[in-house]
């Protein structure tokens, strides 16, 4: 399958790199769900890459394919010199300590039958690092670092905590093994606004302290703006636009990105009607449109978009767009 181009991949130094990632699920009757159709990206040390898209865009499937919770149909995931897609289960386990994940549903991602302190200590127990006492001490320290008091919270179970507290526990657990990369799959989508802000700030602080790389998956461009260095917009299993956060929000260049940004409700402002995409919704990934997958909702679509799939091209410094009609370099590109 044709990828959407690799122009946006950096030449060297990436800690995590996905190439030509394809995930398809077979259906009855020989059809397939094309969840992820040729996605490439890389993450540099200390960088946060945000992956943004609506439901059905394949962003969560991408995350699961990276950590091999979902076996990719094709493609490679290079992580610190290993190709995770070809590793046997024993070797994959070894890698997993350095590649952690935080899930969307904070309460359901904790074992409901165990106490919180035990859950946080579990990664060390799995890897048999230190004595039981050392493991528990480390777990207490980790709980403190995410703003939880181990004395009052440590003995509770997930059902006795709020969503925000559970997400703090999840983060503490993910950091126990000192990972290089943490994948956050919609970590604040299930939380209240005031708690959302706490978790976003916490992630930002920890990332700075620990020099972590992060893949931050979200449907919300406003949330993403607060945490990311680089943003990648996905639609129906393909990448539309990749750019540094500053460039993307200042000059969104793919019609889909423009639609997404225009749809975000803004405080106290009249809704900015994007004027297109109205009345249409994301097509089924079982039978995606030919050529450019966004063309069925795009105001710029022409015959070319039906026939030929656009490839990611650089339109400004570190700003890549896969669109037939937005492929010129912006005049101010060289000054950036």
């Amino acid at each position, binding site marked *: 399958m044709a990828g959407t181009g690799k122009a946006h991949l950096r030449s060297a130094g990436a800690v995590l790199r996905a190439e030509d990632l394809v995930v398809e699920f077979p259906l009855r009757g020989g059809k397939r769900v094309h969840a992820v159709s040729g996605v490439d990206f890389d993450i540099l040390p200390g960088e946060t890459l945000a992956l943004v898209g609506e439901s059905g865009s394949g962003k969560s499937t991408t995350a699961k394919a990276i950590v091999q919770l979902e076996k990719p149909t094709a493609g490679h995931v290079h992580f610190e010199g290993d190709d995770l897609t070809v590793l046997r289960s024993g070797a994959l386990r070894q890698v997993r300590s350095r590649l952690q994940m935080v899930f969307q549903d904070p309460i359901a991602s904790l074992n409901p039958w165990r106490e919180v302190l035990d859950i946080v200590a579990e990664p060390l127990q799995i890897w048999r690092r230190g004595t039981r006492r050392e493991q528990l001490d480390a777990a207490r320290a980790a709980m403190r670092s*995410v703003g939880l008091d181990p004395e009052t919270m440590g003995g509770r179970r997930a059902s006795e905590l709020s969503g925000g507290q559970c997400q703090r526990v999840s983060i503490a657990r993910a950091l126990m093994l000192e990972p290089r990369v943490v994948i956050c799959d919609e970590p604040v989508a299930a939380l209240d606004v005031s708690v959302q802000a706490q978790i976003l700030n916490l992630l930002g602080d920890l990332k700075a302290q620990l020099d972590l790389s992060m893949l931050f998956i979200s449907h919300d461009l406003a949330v993403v703006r607060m945490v990311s260095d680089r943003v990648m917009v996905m639609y129906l299993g393909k990448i539309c636009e990749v750019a540094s956060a500053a460039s993307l929000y200042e000059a969104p260049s793919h019609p889909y990105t423009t639609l997404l940004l225009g749809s975000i409700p803004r405080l106290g402002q009249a809704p900015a009607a994007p004027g297109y995409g109205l009345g249409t919704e994301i097509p089924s990934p079982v039978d995606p449109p030919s050529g450019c997958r966004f063309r069925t909702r795009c105001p710029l679509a022409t015959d070319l978009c039906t026939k030929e799939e656009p490839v990611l091209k650089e339109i400004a410094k570190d700003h890549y767009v896969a669109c037939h009609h937005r492929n010129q370099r912006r005049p101010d590109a060289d000054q950036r």
Partner: protein
Amino acid sequence: MKSKIDGAGPPPVLPAEPGLDGRAPARTRPKGRRRVGVWLAGAWLALVISVALLADVLPLADPTVNIAPAESAPFGAWPEFLGTDRLGRSVLSRLAHGAQVSLLIGVLATVFGMAAGVAMGMLSAVRPASDFVLGALTDSLLAVPGVVLLLALGATMGAGLTPLVLGLALYAMPSFARLARGTTRTVHGRPHVQAAQVMGAGQFRILVREILPAVLRPVIAYSVVVLASLVVAEASVSYLGLGVPPPTPTWGGMISDGQSSLDQAPYLVLVPAAILFITVLSLGVLGRSSRQGNP
């Protein structure tokens, strides 16, 4: 008081606020009659179990020794309060000792069947290859009528406690396996299981720590129902003469013995049958209420 990252704990726990007018809340409780039924069932089972456990120390006659004329009617003097059987043995004593054997066989078979079934079911849920093999095995076990299975086992291993327990366990295993497999498949997709996978936990650890507790709840509720059906199954097999060999008393064996003199001494069948019936009914009531407790 707290770290810089806003982590204030919950506000201090204060006593719950009374209602709008201080009235006690109208709690929803199960219907009263069902509660009474559960209590009665529990009381009966407690009686049966304690009699079974204490059968050897209670002032009862030896269940294998003739103590009085054969087939003397019930409501006589102690210890032949419930009469004597064809050989002049105390029915009361035989019932008490029979409870011991019948329940022991039922419980052992249930526990073995549950352990094997849960292990098989969980394994087949996570291993496609074993799913095929174990699925075929459980399906064929379910296809063979239970009595035929026990007959075959009795024929090859001879009559006795061990083949009986093994046979009944084998009979109970497929339904446990199916229940465990279904629950495991549901739970396996939950985020906390995926989180354990991402942490690098091995499959055995995930099955035991993350999934087993979820599987055990429905399985334990179901096991009470299975126990009831196994007590009946043991009685059926003993009735057919394939159970524990005489003179060891079991409830099914007593019913079987009694049928030859059904017209002269109907109590020899009716009394153990009634006790068996009430016990199985009680187990059913308890099983149903425990399943309602864990939806």
